[in-house]
């Protein structure tokens, strides 16, 4: 935990990240060792590695961090998390930054939020994921060219019976929707 005397000096951005991430208080212990960026399979593609992001959070550079591609390049492989000598839940902080960027309208540079929204729209409606629907809707609106490139492999998947053309709906979809709606309502509280 952070001592009272230190808490006063934390940037607002740091306080927000800590509050929104289970176990997030540990981010203040970052040693700037760089094990995270060095371990990351996608580190080379990031605007700033996680190490740099943590320094920027401490420096209250909210805008620059939330507009960066860093968290959207995170593939949730958790290699940084298990290697961090300070046990910072780095992958979870990447999720926090994704949520903040979407909430604050800063996530425009990546297609990942559109993919996430398309995916969860189907689950909200049917209770199950629907690969074909997600892929076609997401690609059509975001990457129409990719649809052509994937055509061949898509047809092979279809021929092999690996592409269901209709979604499966769970029986108690109303129950799931009641749970989702209540969770959405509660998440607006703080």
């Amino acid at each position, binding site marked *: 935990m952070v001592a009272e005397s230190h808490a006063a000096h934390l940037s607002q951005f740091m306080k927000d990240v800590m509050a929104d991430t289970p176990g997030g208080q540990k981010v203040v212990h970052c040693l700037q060792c760089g094990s995270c960026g060095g371990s990351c399979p996608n580190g080379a593609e990031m605007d700033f590695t996680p190490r740099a992001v943590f320094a920027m959070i401490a420096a209250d550079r909210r805008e620059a961090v939330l507009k960066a591609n860093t968290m959207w390049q995170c593939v949730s492989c958790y290699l940084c998390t298990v290697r961090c000598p300070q046990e910072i839940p780095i992958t979870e902080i990447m999720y926090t930054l994704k*949520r903040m960027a979407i909430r604050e309208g800063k996530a425009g540079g990546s297609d990942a939020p559109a993919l996430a929204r398309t995916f969860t729209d189907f689950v909200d409606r049917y209770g199950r*994921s629907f690969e074909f629907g997600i892929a076609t809707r997401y690609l059509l609106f975001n990457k129409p060219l990719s649809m052509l490139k994937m055509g061949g492999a898509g047809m092979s998947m279809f021929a092999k019976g690996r592409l*269901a053309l209709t979604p499966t709906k769970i029986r108690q979809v109303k129950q*799931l929707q009641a749970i*989702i709606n*209540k969770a959405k309502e509660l998440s607006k509280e703080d």
Partner: protein
Amino acid sequence: MKYAYYPGCSLESGSAAYDKSVKAVIEQLGFGLDELDDWNCCGATEYFSQNELVATSVIARNLALVDDRHDQLVAPCAACFLNLKKTDKLLAEQPKIRGKVDQALAAGGLRYRPGRVQVRHLLDVLYTDIGEQAIKAKVVQPLTGLRVAPYYGCQIVRPLNGFDNPEYPMKLDEMFTWLGAEVVDYPVKAHCCGGHMTQISEENAFELIRRLLQSAADYRADLILCMCPMCQLNMDMYQGRVNNFFNTKFKLPIVYFTQMLGVALGIDMKKLGFGKELVAAEPVIRGKLEGQTAAATK
């Protein structure tokens, strides 16, 4: 211990071979796995990217659906396994989240006490609960001569696994030595396959996939064993496009570990979902195993 089974969405369509082989193997080994009634999608990484409370509530519904007759929930998919386990842990450790998830579940007439259900990955159940002796006793077709590259990927071994090393896991390696296979010890067995990156930034994803295929090929693997639908999809469905992109000639079958376990247990390959993979596995497997039998009879 009584096991409830959470197949996950991929096993219903794209990864039906996994589902089929899990069921065939479980039956052959003689233990029960009861599918969780009316389970819903775990949300993969996609709800967590948008709203943590919705993500955990959606997952918690599945934990709440496990009835009193079952105390274990078994998931074959990496993302489902991690999500179920992570949510149970979050509910146990974060009272603020738990309070709200309780309210959300109550809106659907459900409740869940953290820790009531133990979330397990299928590999852990097969390795630990069924175990070496019981599996070895049922092997009728040893995998002698077949070089297999066990691929663990990310979310089964990190960060919460509890049954294997997060960077250098060994359980799947060990299981395949029980079955008589030659297990390839290659350096990328727990590296990332790119996950959903194929949908976001293809060229990044192709490089991550290439590293895996290259390493397995360098170590002369006949095939890659996987335990996650996403890993299988990325390495199998995208293998042709990776070859086009890098001008490589990989032709590595990517099969589920349960399919090969089934072969060793003498189950007919049709019942194990072979033939659904885009890079054909059957000719490679038959070639190696029949070659071995022929050599033994000479």
